[in-house]
């Protein structure tokens, strides 16, 4: 049994050293002046007052020609076509599922944009419409790709590839979407013995290793077998590493996750949820990434 009570000021003593570092210039908080120069265009996350451009959210400044935007550090996910996302079915509707993807509006998955079990391409019959809840029901998790973005910002998803589809056993973790780096591949079979899907929407799925050939069934064959305890421990460790990275605002992609996993090996899995150990691992990872310049 472990019960760990600490005082809030102990935490502060550990953290106070961090404030010595100067804030990078491109990071702003609401009310910061971005520029006094005229001729810039006001983008998202900014406002103009007396010809001075201010930030209205906390985040980093992005400049495209004359357009200045502030990309918030913590916000709902704004989708882009081609993004890999993880979502949860929250409603089965007429020829579509409503999916929660941590964006401002719920996303939709049309019956016509899923691979149905059995055949690659076949006509969707009325039978399929009635069977929709048998394929995906409320609460199910899916991995999918953004097919299109509607005018109001809501997303339409598709799972028309065998790598997408329903997710089986594993753990879901939510991190700020701005911490996930866009990469060519978001599906990783990590050498430490687990698979992760790092969704662009900030949802991270960690599960037992997926076998390339036999397991890619689009998720319609669910496996309820017991996961052995060593795999379970690896999943828990990765989960805690990802939480540690997210809490200390370190970018998350396969390399950082593996780095953090490597640094975490000297601790027991349950020690990783302690805030100071989590912080240490995140800082080590940050340093290593910085030095190697990935």
């Amino acid at each position, binding site marked *: 049994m472990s019960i760990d*009570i600490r*005082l*809030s000021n102990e935490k502060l003593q550990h953290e106070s050293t961090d404030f010595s570092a100067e804030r990078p210039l491109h990071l702003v908080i609401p009310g910061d002046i971005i520029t006094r120069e005229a001729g810039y265009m006001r983008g998202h996350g900014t406002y103009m007052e007396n010809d001075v451009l201010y930030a209205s959210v906390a985040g980093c400044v992005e400049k495209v020609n004359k357009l200045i935007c502030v990309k918030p550090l913590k916000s709902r996910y704004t989708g882009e076509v081609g993004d890999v996302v993880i979502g949860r079915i929250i409603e089965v509707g007429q020829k579509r599922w409503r999916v929660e993807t941590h964006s401002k509006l719920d996303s939709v998955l049309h019956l016509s944009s899923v691979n149905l079990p059995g055949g690659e391409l076949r006509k969707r019959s009325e039978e399929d419409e009635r069977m929709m809840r048998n394929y995906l029901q409320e609460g*199910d998790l899916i991995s999918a790709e953004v097919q299109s973005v509607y005018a109001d910002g809501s997303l339409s998803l598709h799972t028309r590839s065998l790598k997408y589809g329903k997710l089986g*056993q594993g753990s879901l973790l939510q991190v700020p979407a701005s911490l996930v780096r866009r990469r060519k591949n978001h599906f990783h079979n990590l050498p430490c013995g687990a698979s992760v899907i790092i969704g662009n929407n900030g949802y991270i799925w960690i599960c037992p290793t997926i076998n390339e050939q036999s397991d890619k069934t689009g998720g319609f064959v669910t496996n*309820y077998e017991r996961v052995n305890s060593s795999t379970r*421990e690896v999943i*828990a460790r990765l*989960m805690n590493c990802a939480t540690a990275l997210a809490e200390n605002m370190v970018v998350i992609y396969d390399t950082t996750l593996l780095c953090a996993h490597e640094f975490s090996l000297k601790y027991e899995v*349950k020690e990783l949820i302690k805030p100071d150990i989590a912080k240490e691992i995140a800082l080590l990872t940050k340093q290593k990434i910085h030095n190697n310049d990935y």
Partner: protein
Amino acid sequence: MDVILSKSEKIFLTHGIEEGIREDGRAPDDYRTIDLELSVVPNANGSSRIKLGNSDVLAGVKCEIGEPDPGRPNEGKIIFNVDCSANAGTEWEGRGGDDLEIEISEFLSKAYSNKSCLDLQILGLIPGEQCWHLYIDVLILRNGGNILDAVSLAVKSALYDTEIPKVLIKMSEKGQSEVELTDNPSDYIIMSTENCPIFVSICKLGKGHVVDATAKESACTMAKIVSAVRKDGMITASQKKCSGSLQESSVLEMYEHCRKVGMELNKTLISKLSEAKNAPIVGFLA
């Protein structure tokens, strides 16, 4: 609690608990790190803030002079009030948190109604006429699972922090007694909180049971037993929650577990409280 999980996620979680490896690597009877701070609200007579993992609870104690209950003329009163902040989750918006608020405050009153928990005699001023009323207000700022345990820890800590001003009782010319507060702010009394109970919630998932369940774990809990445990292991109140039923053997096993964990938790908290009393105040803006 607004967590939905898919069937396979539930199975993964439950199997893990049966094997003794939880989702975040904890063993079944491990707590998450508890952050404790006292005197966070300067206007209250006593206050505390507890962070248990992602759960965040603020408790404050306010003393007021009022009339005692006719049945207990020599004793003061404690009144619990719980408020679920709508910031903690959309399910608590508007009147959404009302049921939970009432449930928690009722359970707190029940747990503290045992005479051995808190010496209410010390709160009596003029028998039958005036006594101290302690308003204990709990604000739930964030819900990350296991709210009840966090609330009880916050209440106990806030009571520990409470300083009740000393009063002088004078006889007026008409022969009536009058209450007068002292001018000296450092003249106060402190209640003994050693025996205040702490809630221990034990959730049954599959064949195993766990303490300090996260929001996800509570979403797949079949049955849950919450007990108010004193430092000597006595249980002053208890409650069963969730829809599942329990067999007698597992009930007894869970109670024994509650007592064991509760005693340990009490011991750790009591030893930390004296340290916390003199610690500098960090507050909310740190």
